[in-house]
């Protein structure tokens, strides 16, 4: 995991760089929660571009962080979600709760 805090805008960018399964999710959530609690940011962006594998453990991991950020009064956003991850987030209803910007949308934005 790579964490970057942008002071103006009070935005915390968290980039996950490991495969997400039950094993890694346990450690990841501790690291992510720690960063969120340390900075108490206004906005948290979860960057998924470094995730090479994700199973359903990713659903709980994302929802859990979303809840924590909301509780602290911040906004939460997920970016760089690939097709497979999008499918898992759609199936589980995560997409209805959390703002997800997938890779294709990003590309289109760049063109405009």
């Amino acid at each position: 995991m790579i964490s970057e805090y942008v002071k103006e805008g009070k935005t915390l960018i968290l980039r996950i760089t490991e495969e997400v399964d039950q094993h890694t999710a346990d450690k990841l959530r501790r690291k992510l929660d720690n960063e969120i609690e340390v900075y108490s940011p206004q906005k948290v962006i979860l960057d998924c571009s470094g995730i090479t594998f994700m199973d359903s453990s990713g659903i709980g991991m994302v929802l859990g962080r979303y809840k924590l950020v909301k509780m602290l009064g911040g906004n939460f956003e997920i970016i760089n979600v690939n097709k497979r991850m999008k499918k898992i987030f759609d199936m589980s209803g995560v997409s209805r709760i959390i703002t997800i910007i997938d890779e294709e949308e990003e590309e289109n934005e760049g063109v405009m």
Partner: protein
Amino acid sequence: MKGLCDNEMKLEFSSKTSNEAFARVAVAAFVAQLDPTIDELSDIKTAVSEAVTNSIIHGYGDEEGTVKIEVKIYINTIEIEISDSGKGIEDVEIAMRPLYTSKPDLERSGMGFTIMESFMDEIKVESALGFGTKVKMKKKIEPKQQEDELTNTEDGEASWKRI
């Protein structure tokens, strides 16, 4: 010859979550001989990860046990069996419902079986309380188009043609 598979492998490992990555990568490496697409391979890795995780965290929980994987190849179809001798499932039908989880405290979402169902062609779950659980999944790997195709020549004999 019917009923015999073309190739098979068996794997046994301790019920530790640190083995999840090993399990899905090992199955993917074995399945690679069918020349699957990256998408097909990711589907299989995800489904294996789900079933193996279930055996470890639900089947055995805090107890130590062994997870078994058997993979068989029948022409273009792979059959994966993942089993444990853990505590078993009381009602498989309820367990398989989307969003049903007995461990919300572990941030589980209850989407494991739904993902297995959607990423594989077929899934069958057998379970007995106190004895364990077996998940059987099948997936057809689509033959690639640029491969040799069996066609009939004019004299009626089958021959291989490169297309």
